[in-house]
């Protein structure tokens, strides 16, 4: 925690071919950006099972990001469209759980878009900082 302010804990599922490479580019170019996103590499954004997203929130994430190739560029043809459809439905469902739309995000970041990745991380972090901690924490299942 810096300066006693709330530091959002964010989880990012990044696809191997585009987004992870794009994030890597941001790193090798020594770009400075918020360090709050914990990155998990998957082969395709379409690999992200909704259970992963729920688990991330349950384990303490204040926000979850999925990032993949731009529509039309998916290494596996249509995996990112599947991710998009899942994202829209999951986003709607999460609201019924009291998890605000802003906490769950889908972005298209290509291998060349280090700058975009930097912007997404900064923006997401500040947005969640304003929203505050999610507080559903890992102690669920244990009862009163």
């Amino acid at each position, binding site marked *: 925690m810096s300066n006693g302010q709330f530091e959002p804990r964010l989880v990012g599922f990044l696809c191997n071919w585009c987004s992870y490479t794009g994030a890597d580019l941001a790193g090798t170019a020594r770009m400075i950006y918020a360090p709050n996103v914990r990155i998990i590499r998957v082969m395709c954004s379409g690999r992200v099972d909704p*259970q992963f997203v729920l688990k991330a929130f349950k384990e303490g994430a204040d926000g979850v990001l999925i990032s993949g190739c731009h529509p039309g560029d998916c290494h596996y043809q249509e995996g990112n469209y599947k991710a998009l459809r899942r994202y829209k439905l999951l986003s709607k469902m999460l609201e019924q759980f*009291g*998890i605000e739309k802003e906490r769950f995000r889908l972005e298209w970041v290509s291998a060349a878009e280090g700058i975009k990745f930097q912007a997404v991380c900064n923006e997401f972090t500040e947005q969640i900082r304003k929203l505050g901690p999610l507080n559903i924490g890992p102690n*669920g299942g244990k*009862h009163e």
Partner: protein
Amino acid sequence: MSSAKPKVAFYWCASCGGCEESIVDLAEDILKVVAAVDIVFWPVALDFKKKDVEAMADGSIAVSFINGAVRLSEQEEMAKLLRRKSQLVVAHGSCSHLGGIPGLGNFWNKETIFRRAYETTPSTDNPKKVVPLEKTVVDGKELTLPRFYDTVYALDQVIDVDYYLPGCAPPRDLILNAVSAILEGKLPPKGAVLSPNKSLCDDCDRNESKPDKLTIKEIKRPWEVMLDPEKCFLAQGVICMGPATRTGCGERCIEANMPCRGCFGPTDQVYDQGAKFLSALASIMETKDEKEMDKIVQSIVDPAGTFYRFSLPTSILARKRMEAIK
């Protein structure tokens, strides 16, 4: 009473009584079962009291069948008591297995439920806002009620459970098989759900009517369309939880021409039934056009309440965020 016969107990937590009825629906077959066991506790039918159970030696009950979710402190106490006194505990029915329909209360909390029941319902006449209390005094006499929790729990969230009998209510074949397995000592490894580990679609008569590539262009609610009694519901655009639901029920709802709502819970490989179904549904929403996607998502009116109809307490998130409840 012969002391060589195994002792059996039945108890209900936050229950509707349907699982008790499912035992009665064994009809003639109940007699073979009853001849082989000693029922030592069954509030719906026999007059044994809680103190009778407390007086038994720990582990002296061979198997306790506990149905119902845990919503009140008394239910948790009874579950723990029976756990101590039993060698095996079977979670009987959807409520104890997954949380069940009462689990839908996890979109709310005690305050909102009480406020609705005792204050804001239009027929309630309660200007002084009286609510049930854990302790009250009437004419100088103290009366107690068990505590109502904010959250509903499945049985294995409060005690260790050995086996699960799924269904709302479990069908008679499943119950008979389970009871025979117990009496003969031929049980699968601890923790098993006592029904085959495949999805409903595998056994459903309508499976063959599915096109090679199943796609949904539009979701229809059951009241909006004439339901074709031979075609897969998903192929008709009607949400059916079959793909994410364990088989074993005999597809009773499907036979009555209504779609599955998932009461058997998921197969072994799945943590969260609702999330898995969401994934399956998104996969067959065959469009690359974002506007069309939005339209389809719009037509799914209650994703959480539909996909988690029976399994909310045992889902990954388990309940709606408390701070978000008004």
